[in-house]
């Protein structure tokens, strides 16, 4: 629609820059925290969307990561622990035109807030959930989280954690989120591209972001995300392309039945990455890849297009109004049966 196009035309929404998205608040993360990089990429990416600042809202829970909204020159809501998706749900349903990001942590999003995450995703609400996974509770100073590995020694697990961790990507796929991706703090290009893809997606987007907490869980992703080893140990997923990895893209992924195996890049069995497949069988398989057994996948695991919850709700309102006419308060108040007293 031309009219809509004009709404975001050059004179009305001047091209913004990174610093337009920085608020006047001092950032309060530890020096060296991975959160800084995510903030910076977000501020850099947003101008690409051509959206006005006032139409963007960051909603977060509680945690170091959940301080994010304070640093964005957009609308923001730093809510309570685990509940950000619920506030985002109400806000999105009330105001479908807003662009909403939910920022959450591995504790906020998968421990106390796991259920809300699951339900917001399955409803295909058109919001963008960014889960900063540092595999630790940062804000409360270092207890294990639902993504911490078995055996992890923390303040609350002095003899090691005995909990089998949750796999955030697998959770999102189970909820049949229509956009599911993973990226990490130290690859700004990949990070920013992934954020942008999520923002463009219509429907529920889920992005797991590996984020280093240099105070309480330093280096937990280092073995495969550090620059020198990345090439060999990460599998960058690219839609429509064969699944190759290695510094020279020399290796690839193939399937034996439902079991993955690593082959040479030129093996004809190398599979093509197809995030648009409705059944997330391969996605689920990829979600389980762990270093050192397998390369760790980065990128979009799944992206399919389905009507969002908000669209369907809007449609019901349209349909009802067409079928029954716009609501008539007097008729509603009167109900089906009235009588008169004179």
């Amino acid at each position: 629609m031309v009219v809509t196009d004009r709404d975001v035309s050059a004179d009305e929404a001047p091209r913004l820059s990174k610093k337009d998205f920085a608020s006047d608040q001092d950032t309060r993360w530890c020096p060296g925290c991975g959160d800084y990089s995510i903030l910076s990429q977000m501020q850099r990416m947003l101008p690409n969307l051509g959206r006005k600042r006032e139409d963007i809202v960051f909603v977060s829970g509680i945690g170091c990561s959940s301080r994010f909204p304070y640093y964005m020159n957009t609308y923001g809501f730093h809510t309570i622990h685990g509940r950000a998706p619920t506030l985002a749900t109400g806000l999105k349903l009330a105001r479908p035109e807003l662009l909403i990001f939910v920022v959450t942590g591995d504790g906020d999003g998968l421990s106390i807030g796991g259920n809300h995450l699951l339900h917001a995703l399955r409803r295909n609400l058109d919001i963008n959930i960014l889960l900063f996974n540092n595999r630790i509770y940062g804000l409360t100073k270092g207890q294990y989280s639902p993504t911490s590995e078995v055996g992890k020694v923390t303040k609350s697990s002095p003899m090691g954690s005995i909990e089998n961790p949750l796999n955030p990507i697998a959770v999102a796929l189970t909820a049949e989120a229509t956009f599911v991706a993973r990226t990490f703090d130290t690859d700004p290009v990949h990070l920013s591209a992934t954020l942008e893809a999520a923002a463009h997606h219509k429907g529920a987007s889920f992005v797991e972001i590996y984020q280093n907490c240099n105070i309480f869980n330093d280096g937990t992703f280092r073995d495969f995300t550090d620059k020198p080893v990345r090439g060999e140990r990460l599998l960058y997923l690219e839609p429509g392309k064969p699944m190759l990895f290695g510094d020279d893209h020399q290796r690839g992924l193939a399937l034996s039945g439902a079991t993955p195996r690593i082959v040479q890049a030129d093996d004809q069995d190398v599979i093509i990455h197809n995030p648009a497949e409705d059944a997330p069988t391969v996605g689920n398989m990829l979600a389980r890849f762990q270093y050192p057994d397998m390369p760790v996948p980065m990128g979009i695991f799944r992206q399919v297009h389905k009507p969002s919850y908000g669209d369907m709700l809007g449609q019901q309102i349209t349909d009802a109004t067409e079928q029954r006419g716009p609501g008539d308060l007097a008729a509603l108040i009167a109900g089906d049966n009235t009588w008169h007293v004179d």
Partner: protein
Amino acid sequence: MVESPTLGSSAKKSVVQRERATIRFAGDSGDGMQLAGNRFTDATAVFGNDFSTLPDFPAEIRAPAGSLAGVSSFQISFSARTIHTPGDAPDALVAMNPAALKVHAKELIRGGLLIVNKDAFTSANLKKAGYTSNPLDDGSLADYRLIEVPITQLASAAAAESGVSKQDAERTKNLFALGVVYWLFDRDLGPSIAWIEEKFAKLPAVVEANKAALKAGHAYGETAELADAHVSVPPASLLPGTYRTITGNEATAIGLVAAKELSGLQLFYGSYPITPASDILHSLASYRNFGVKTFQAEDEIAAVGAAIGAAFGGSIGVTGTSGPGVALKSESIGLAVMTELPLIVLNVQRGGPSTGLPTKTEQGDLLQALYGRNGESPVCVIAPRSPGDCFYMVIEAVRLAFHAMTPVIFLSDGYLANTAEPWPLPDISQLPKIDVTFHQDPQTFEPYRRNPDTLARQYAIPGTPALQHRIGGLEKADGSGNVSYDPDNHQHMIDTRADKIARIANVIPALEIEGPDTGDVLVLSWGSTYGAAITAVEQARADGAGVSLAHLRHLNPFPANLADVLSRFQTVLIPETNSGQLRLLVRAKFLVDAQGLNKVNGQPFNSSEIVDAIMALRSTQVPTHA
């Protein structure tokens, strides 16, 4: 024992005029007593009586057929004068099986009319009800005017002709019973027949079966000369106007839609089903053509979260639930307190603690509304006093929430939710507009800058250019809204939040005294207790007591003149269906030795209980002025 009448004698036309009658229908959950009651209510409405009803369901889940736990009842009181309660003890009881008799007979007045379905008094059913001998035979019902009718048999026979199955034919027994009662109380079959025809329009055989049973019951009453005379309660002289029947839950849902129109805002309702609040969700979900957005959340926390999110976006954000749900929402309500957003929380209270008695009524959540959050977390609390008042008070909730930028908790209860009364339709044009202005001007904007009168903070919603800001649950610096750990600011904000709620007293009506404005006893009631309280006060006054009523619809803050009102009476009596929650507040605030009348058995007050308490108080005290 009263002799049961023989069938076939000719009908006499003698009629006894009465000012008021109270009937209770009781039977198994499967017997359709709520339906019978509702039909009777409609007939009564059309007839022009004032009335009030009290449905009483068993637990949410079906109990075994014929068991005591499975008994369902519906009471209606109707009158030639204005009434406020569904009556205390019924004058007439329909008992469809032994269990219903066992549970309810003891409340029937001496000499009351007792109509039983003789067919259901099998030995199996008697045993299930815990009878060791058949009460129809053993003389234990001698105090009542017992009328035994083979209802199942007669209804089946009447209905069978329409060609429905044997089972369906039997199911018409509630309509047969209703027919009998219509005859006894001189009601017109017309509205019920119309209802049947509409309801089962697609099932002509069922229509016929039900009509046949209803008419057969009526005819049976007439031909069997069931009582010495039938009773007639003349129409009431209600105020002129157009009326409908309304329950509290219906009025609440409609009131929210009205608030939407009065404010011009969107209405968002986030809820998770729970008895007895679910019907509000059901109603609102069917108003899609009003643009109402309902959201059935995954739990109560999500429901309130979504409502807060909607409020942040500039909608009327409402969440509805019952007590256990409010417990779950308490952390989130605290967030709305801190972020100073308008949020409406409907609590349709039920019996507690814990899961408690889900289908029973109670006023047990007043202190939870006030104090059920961490920290100093003041909110506005209001309570409707009758089914129809739910309409006005939910509009009031919306008004106050936006007026002061605060959560408002609306305390309805299971009794108000389900009880029905005739309700004069409001004149929409007379309803007050709800003024909401979103802040627009960047020059004057700060998220926690306040209106000097109301202390409401500026309300700027996403989408407003140049007003980007962030709010949240950490303490905020007044004005800027930045996170603040400053001790003085915290004290200031604690005081400001309290003051903001206190100032709501400036914009709510003064407390009215119903009756003389000084006297021996003041009955101070709140919420659903109004009906019983006003009835009791009027009666006690008629009996010579110097008693008045003051009824609180605003619980926090109290109306500004409450202290003055209290000071005009020797004694204050506070009837509540809890263990004394308003009483605690009144004593603490005013240091008045208020007496409590407390009943926590899942049932609303009988007005006679309040009359007795008034009389007892009166006799124990020495008045200090003439």
